[in-house]
Structure formats: C-alpha cells, structure tokens
C-alpha cells in the first residue's frame, strides 16, 4: 500500500523530527519513515519560502504537506491554514483522496476540500463561508476566490501556500498570474509561508526567485540513479513523416516485456495514427489505451482510472499525461519522435520508476531520419546532464490588466498600494510606474487616444480609490478569468447517437468535405456534416484515414539541441546508424550539408509548386519569423509565395515563382526594414493579439453556450486588430501584442544571431527535385498561408472551376 502522498519510504527510518506523536505513531504503525528531504521540509517549516526539487516517487507532495499536518496536529484551529495549488484539476482531486484517508485514520479534525472549475455552486458558497483547513485548488480558481469581496476575511489566517509542479507553471502566463495572486495573498496574510514543489530543472535558484523574490531555501532530494535511456534500435525509420509506425512490432515487444508502458507522441494526430496501427498489430489483445487533450473528458477519465488501477499494459499519449495524473506502476517510457526538449524528456522519464531506487527506463524511437540525429543529440545531452532552458522574461502586461480588473471586482483599491504589491511578484519586479498606469488606464477607460465619451469607463476613481463603475460588470470579468486562450474547437460525435468522441480544431473541421475520413479515439470515422456547431461522423471501418491534421502540443526544439544537431551532422567521427549515415551521404551528393558558419538555401520544384528551403537552425520561432519576412519580400519581388512552414532548423516556403537569389532576400538591412512594416499585418500577430486581447479583457472569452447561436457570433478579433492599427497604432494592446510576438513567436534576436553567424555566406542551390534533408518538412503541421497575389490567383481559379462544375459559367 502506498504512503499518503507518495510511495512507501522505506529507505530512511530516521528520527521523527518535529512530528507530533499522533503523526509519528501513525507512520510507525505502518513501518514507514521519512525521506531525508521530507525531514528537511519539517526542519525548514518556519522558513518564509522553500523550494523542493525532487524526482517523482519521492513523496514530494507529502513533503509539502508535512509541516501543515504537524502544525495542525499540534495546534488544531478552524479557518483556512494551507492552500495547495496545482496546475491540474485532476491532481487536486487526487490529493484530496490521498490526504483524507490517513487523516481519518489518525482521527485528526482536519478538513481537506478541493475547489476547481468543476466544484458545484453550493459547495463553493459554503467554502467561502466556512473554509476547510486545507483547500486544494488551481491558479484560476484562486484568482476567482481573490476577486470576491470577502477574500480578506477568507485568507486572513492563511499560514502556508504550496505550489505543486511549479516548474511547469513557471513557464507560462499561468505562473505570472499565480505570482500576482500570491503577492495579493501575502498582503492579506503577511505571515504566509510559501512552498514550491518541482521536478528536475536546470536552474533551481531562478525558480526559487520566481516563487519568492525575497529569498528562498532550496532543498534537493536525492535524484536517484541515472536513467537507463537509449534508442529502441532496429528498423530504419522512413525517409520522412512522423509517428514512428515503422516501429510498431518492436514497441509491442517492449510492451510485452514490461508491466506498464507509456508511449509519448509529440502531436495528437500522430498519437491517433500510432494507436490505430498498434491495435491492428495487437494480436495478443493487450489492454492498451489512448490519452490526449482532444478526447472527451469521460474518455480520458476512463484511461486515467485504468492506469491508476494498473489494468492497462500501455497508454499512447501526448503532453496531456505529463503532469500529475497517477501513473501507477509505469516501468517504461517510449518517446516516439524526437524529444525536442531535453529537460522535458528527463522529467518524463523520471516518472517511470516504479520504485524510488530503481533507474527509470526510457527508449527513444526516431520517426524519420532527421529525428535519428535529434535523438542521438538528445541522448548525448542527457548523458552530460546538459538541461536546456531559457530565462523566463518579465511578466506580460495583459495578465496585469486582468489582475487589475479582478482586483477591482474584490473592492476599491488605491493605485499606489496595488503598484507596490504587484512589484513584489517576481515577474513584475521591474514593472515601471508608467506601464502600470497604462494598464490601469486601459482597464478604466479602454485607453483610447480618442476620448469622446464620458460613459466610456469601466473603472471610476472615488475618494482616491479605484472601483468598478457598474458592480454588475464583475460577473463578466470573473467569467473571463484565466490566461489560457484555447483555439476554437468543435465537438465530434457519432451522428444520431450523440456520444461525444472528442474535439477537433475549427480550422481542421473547415477543411473536411463529406466522406473524408480521419482518426478520433483510435477509430476511423467518416465526416458526415456540421450540425449545431458539432461535427457529426459515422464509423467507417476498414478505410484508410485521411490524416488528421488537428494539432496537439508541439514543443519547440531548444537552441542547445539545435546546435548539437548541426555539430553532429558535420562530425565525420559521429557514430550514426548506417541508414542515417547513408542518408546524409545522399544529401551531400544531391545537395550539400548545412554548416555552422554558412546558410544553405535549396530551391527546387515539387508537386507543381516552387519550393525554397532555408537552413537557418535558429529555432522554430525565429524560423517562423524568417518565413514571414521572406514571404513578404518574395511577394514584393513578384514570386507569389503561397505559404510556408517552419521547423527548428529550416523554413520551407512554397509559391508560384522560383527563388534564384536567396542572398538578396536574406539581406539583413532589408529584413530589419521589413520587420516594422510586416509586424503590422500578419497572421502570427493577429493570433497573438487574440490571446492578448482576451486575457486583458478587451474581448470576452467565447463561451461554449454563446457560440451555438452562430447568428450573433462575436466578430473576429482580426477586425479589432485592424481597426486599432489604423486608428490608434500606439494603443497598449498593440504594444503588448508586439512585445509578446517579438520575444515569443517572433524571436527576432535569433535571426540577428543567425545572420551574424553566417555573415552573408549564403549558398543558393538550384535542384531539380526534393532534396533528402528537406523532405520531412513537407509533413510538418502549422503551415502558415500567405495572403497575396498567389492566393488571389488560386482563389479565382477555384471559383472558376466550381462554377463550371455547377454549370453556372458565364
């Protein structure tokens, strides 16, 4: 039987320091002791902030709760004592179950409750009136709690806050929002102590500062033995493609040889294809499940329960299984496709140790020959302990705008006090007063240069304090809480039966025509039609599916890994599988190998279009920007580009005219000049704007119920973007969008680095066919269309064709 929040800690039976008898007796009765890091957490219980870095299976969560249990056992008291925050709702519910049983056995009068988006209204209300001692919640639910007028009363006695999986939260806006909420909590409960629980990270000190800028104790648990990690050797992967279906037989053999295997994919579509083929080959009928974010919640819950119960031999998954969910006794992780990010790989395989002292075991399956290189580079990096990571930039202002509006929901506030409080959150430590005031102005009046209307206000100043003009607006603002802005998705269900299978992105649904088949939950389904914003499908056994292109989480390969790969490709002594060596040789023969100090550009016709492949190795975001800048210049040069796709290594552009002089297109001054004009009108900026405008409260989030009556559909955020750009180009939302894009999706500094590295050494090769190295790029998802002459020509041709087909010509 496992311990309360982790696995039995038989490794260490040291003295039960600082544990009240009721707890130590209970541990002793089970023959359990504490891990050293759990004991250390008790020793450090009075510290203002503590960050614990521990591998999975080390009883990390228990370590976080022990000081709370010790304090409450010694001095029972009503009222909220400890707030536990997890990035996942499911995790909060798990922890509640795992804490409730031992507390009952010890007879401790401690109430533990969770509160998430799934908690019912009655319980929520009761929790605010009569809070439990331990409340388990998510960053969004905490933001909501803080937006109520009774927040000061609720949190006044709060003693501890535990942030679980803080390494994951630290990488996103959710973490920025959470740190603003912690600053607020600290104002309401000045004695509040903070605890962070994290998996292995490259820079624990930075994460400690993120948790508590005023200083943080860092505790490291024994990381355990080094992982057993290698490539799943054998069949050569295909020339191109993703998904690793060539390795089905080997993967099945590995599943048979282990108790429980988790098979990770980089995208949902690949997971679906792989799962389908795995089942076709699964002649023993091994119980195998699938788990990804597009599946219906019930379907995911079934798989999670089966995993926890140990009744599955394997799960095919995407990043949706990365956090929190109880993995049961997983003893093997298989990563299909290149891992893209070494730190995440290490964190994943760290979870595959059924016992704390055994090495975790992982196998990599490169899905194509380029990924063989990526996998070899990743293995080298893991062996050298070279974790990648970039420092988290300052907190974005859209999140601050949301925070200001939610603060106003809780009651009147003074600008000076809020400014000081916000700066006590690490992401906003360097916030200027001017930026704060701009955000406040945006929240109050919209911040428009044109101020024609008195009634154009959301916040009013009264007696020097800011408050909502209309308190009823609080309801809408609370509905808009959160920093995750989903892509628009549509539900998929079987026609006539109503059983939900999952969701697909709206953009994917729009490409379907009746009769198209795609994979969903491992079944091939046939698209029947769209009805009331639901994609209706029927079962289509035995057909070959049209590849589902709905995208899942796609990690960007880190800078470090990209550099390693470039070195590997040019290392004559590198030990590569024969097929990969032969492929690189073919590339050298047909074209040329990209080199560190030069930029290779391959230009070739393929499938009726002209392609150009720019090998810049600058990382996905910078390569994406390069695509946007280059297509703009190509449009001006009359090359009629139609679209492009970027990988971490290359940008592949297609259009109607061939690229003959890449050096002219890549001229640094030209690219820089193009940047300003270009930033205005492209799809990436508009996508970024949509996120920014939604978080900041300029646009109301599209709620599922509202989208049903499509008639009054909210108009596209693109219209707001275009309007602002034309009439108010200095507006705060555009500035935030630009900043976000520049450091996130645009990453222009890495284009500068790339240009400096190559210093004009650009080799344009004109080839008569698709070169070997560029082939996998054709299958990348995330293609960006280019609006221009080329597309206009294609649209006109398509309209012509449809008219002729319908007999309506002329």
């Amino acid at each position: 039987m496992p311990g309360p929040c982790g696995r039995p800690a038989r490794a260490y039976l040291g003295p039960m320091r600082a544990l009240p008898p009721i707890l130590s007796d209970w541990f002793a009765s089970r023959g359990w002791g504490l891990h050293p890091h759990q004991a250390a957490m008790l020793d450090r219980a009075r510290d203002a902030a503590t960050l614990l870095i521990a591998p999975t299976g080390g009883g990390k969560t228990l370590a976080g709760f022990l000081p709370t249990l010790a304090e409450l056992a010694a001095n029972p008291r009503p009222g909220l004592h400890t707030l536990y925050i997890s990035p996942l709702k499911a995790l909060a519910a798990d922890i509640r179950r795992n804490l409730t049983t031992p507390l009952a056995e010890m007879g401790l009068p401690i109430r533990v409750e969770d509160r998430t988006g799934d908690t019912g209204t009655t319980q929520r209300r009761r929790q605010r009136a009569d809070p439990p001692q331990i409340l388990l919640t998510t960053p969004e639910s905490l933001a909501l709690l803080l937006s109520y007028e009774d927040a000061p009363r609720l949190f006044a006695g709060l003693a501890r806050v535990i942030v679980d999986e803080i390494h994951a939260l630290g990488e996103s806006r959710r973490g920025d929002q959470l740190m603003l909420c912690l600053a607020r909590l600290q104002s309401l409960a000045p004695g509040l102590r903070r605890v962070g629980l994290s998996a292995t990270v490259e820079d624990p000190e930075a994460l400690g500062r993120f948790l508590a800028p005023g200083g943080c104790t860092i505790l490291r648990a024994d990381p355990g033995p080094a992982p057993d990690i290698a490539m799943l050797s054998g069949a050569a992967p295909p020339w191109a493609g993703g998904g690793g279906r060539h390795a089905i037989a080997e993967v099945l053999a590995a599943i048979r040889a282990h108790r429980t295997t988790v098979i990770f994919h980089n995208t949902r579509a690949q997971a679906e294809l792989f799962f389908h083929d795995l089942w076709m080959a699964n002649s023993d009928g091994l119980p195998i499940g699938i788990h990804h974010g597009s599946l219906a919640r019930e379907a995911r819950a079934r798989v999670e329960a089966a995993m926890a119960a140990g009744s599955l031999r394997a799960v095919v998954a995407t990043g949706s299984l990365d956090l929190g969910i109880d993995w049961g006794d997983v003893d093997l992780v298989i990563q299909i496709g290149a891992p893209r990010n070494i730190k995440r790989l290490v964190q994943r395989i760290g979870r595959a140790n059924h016992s704390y002292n055994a090495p975790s075991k992982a196998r990599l399956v490169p899905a194509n020959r380029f990924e063989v290189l990526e996998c070899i580079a990743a293995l080298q990096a893991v062996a050298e302990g070279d974790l990648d990571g970039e420092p988290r930039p300052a907190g974005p202002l859209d999140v601050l705008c949301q925070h200001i509006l939610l603060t106003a929901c809780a009651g009147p506030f003074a600008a000076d006090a809020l400014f000081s409080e916000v700066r006590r959150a690490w992401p906003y430590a360097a916030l200027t007063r001017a930026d704060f005031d701009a955000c406040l102005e945006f929240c109050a009046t919209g911040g428009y240069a044109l101020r024609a209307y008195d009634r154009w206000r959301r916040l009013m100043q009264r007696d020097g304090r800011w408050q909502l003009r209309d308190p009823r607006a609080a309801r809408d603002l609370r509905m808009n809480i959160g920093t995750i802005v989903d892509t628009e998705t549509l539900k998929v269900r079987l026609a006539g039966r109503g059983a939900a299978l999952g969701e697909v992105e709206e953009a994917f649904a729009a490409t379907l025509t009746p009769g198209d088949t795609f994979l969903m939950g491992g079944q091939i389904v046939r698209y029947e039609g769209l009805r009331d914003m639901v994609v209706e499908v029927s079962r289509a056994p035995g057909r070959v599916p049209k590849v589902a292109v709905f995208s899942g989480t796609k990690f960007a390969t880190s800078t470090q890994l990209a550099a390693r790969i470039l070195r590997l490709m040019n290392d004559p002594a590198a030990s590569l599988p024969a097929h990969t060596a032969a492929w690189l040789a073919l590339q050298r023969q047909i074209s040329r190998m990209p080199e560190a100090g030069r930029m290779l550009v391959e230009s070739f016709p393929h499938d009726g279009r002209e392609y150009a492949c720019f090998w810049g190795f600058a990382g996905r975001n910078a390569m994406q920007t390069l695509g946007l800048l280059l297509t703009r210049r190509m449009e001006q040069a009359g090359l009629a580009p139609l679209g492009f796709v970027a990988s971490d290594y290359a940008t592949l552009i297609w259009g109607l005219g061939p690229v003959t002089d890449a050096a002219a297109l890549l001229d640094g001054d030209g690219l820089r000049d193009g940047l300003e004009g270009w930033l205005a009108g492209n799809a990436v900026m508009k996508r970024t704007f949509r996120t920014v405008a939604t978080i900041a409260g300029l646009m109301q989030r599209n709620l599922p119920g509202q989208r049903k009556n499509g008639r009054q559909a909210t108009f596209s955020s693109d219209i707001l973007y275009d309007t602002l750009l034309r009439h108010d180009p200095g507006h705060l939302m555009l500035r935030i969008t630009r900043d976000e894009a520049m450091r996130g999706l645009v990453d222009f500094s890495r284009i500068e680095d790339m240009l400096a590295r190559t210093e004009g050494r650009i080799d344009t090769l004109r080839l008569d066919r698709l070169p070997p190295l560029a082939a996998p790029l054709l299958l990348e998802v995330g293609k960006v269309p280019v609006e221009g002459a080329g597309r206009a020509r294609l649209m006109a041709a398509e309209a012509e064709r449809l008219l002729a087909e319908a007999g309506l010509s002329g």
Partner: protein
Amino acid sequence: MAGYRFDFHGAALEARGSGALWWAARRVLVVSDLHLGKSARMARRGGALLPPYEGRETLHRLEAEIRATDAACVICLGDSFDDLDAVALPEDEAEWLARLMAGRDWIWIEGNHDPAPIAPGGRNAAELRLDGLVLRHIARPDARAEISGHYHPKARLAGQSRPAFLLDGARVILPAFGAYTGGLDATDPALQDLMGATARAVLTGPAALVMPLPRPARARRG
C-alpha cells in the same frame, strides 16, 4: 473595386467588392447593417470597451464607395444604428455623416436594431419599392425581386471565409457593411432555406468573386 455585374428583374446591378450594391441606371447605392455605435452600446452596458473607431471605419469605407460611384441616392437596409441611442453619434461622426448625406437622396430602412423612424436627416421607410424591386431589412420567404440584409452572410472558398452577397432569381441578400459585424455562414439552414437551387454567392474582397452557393456538408438525416 471590381464588382460582379448581374441582371435582376430588369435591373442591371453590381455586387461590389466592398459589400455595397450599385444600381448604375438609378445611381442608387445600397448598403446594409452598418451597426454604427456598436462599441458605445457595449460600453454603456458595462461590457468590454471596444475600440471606439468602428464609426469612422464604416463611414470612411462608405465615403469611398459614394465617391467611386458618384451615387445620387443611398439606401441603408436597416440595422444602420446598433440601437436607437446610438443614433446620437459622436459629433465628428455625425458631421461626417451629414456631409455624406448632403445633396443626396438618403433613405433609412428600418431594421430590428433600429425599428423606429430615426432622425439624422434623410427619409425613413419600413420598406421601399423601386422599379418593381422591393428593399427591406429581413428577407421574406415568399418574396420576389427582393433586396435585403440582416443575416450578415459569409461564404467560404479555398479555405477563406469572407462576407458575401447571396443571390438567386428571387432575392439578393447583402453582406454587412459595418466594421464590427460578425457573420453567418452561407451553409446555415436559415440562409439555405431562403435561397433557391441556382443560388450564387459573391465574395467581397479586393475583387468580388462569384461562386455557386456553398451547400452544407451533407443533407441532414431524418
């Protein structure tokens, strides 16, 4: 803007890329669903503070169309104002509108957002008959030779969705001309039920593009 010219019950009409309908013989320009004052209405209701520029944006485009066609008469097919309070436009927009109206016959058809007579000048009408054509806000299923708006139709071609005119032998439905307007896809039953078998869609944009009316992916079951 290059338009799509078609004959409609004896009238030679042009569906323009801007979303306006031009009747050259009568020098009549028809636009629908301007929704002026939409951001102000939302702000009054305590909702999001949208950029208050849609009036300028819409008037700017309307002025360009009036100049390009040298229209003698402008007919607005209803929902010209987002609500009756919005009729009181900000001063600069009100002056701009007055300038556009000066020297032209200007007719406001009533819409569901602006159902009562409104008074920024010009004439008001619930609907209008002109040379055998009838102009009103919401299409009637049994109508013939009818020009209407209301639905904000959009249509999709080669992966692009754009505001679109829908037309067949009996009716023309205009896209919304206002800046802050969403749209209803042409495959929606509300539009499919109105349009006949030979219906076409004319996509707005730099050049108007005509195509067969897109049909729903599949006829419904049962």
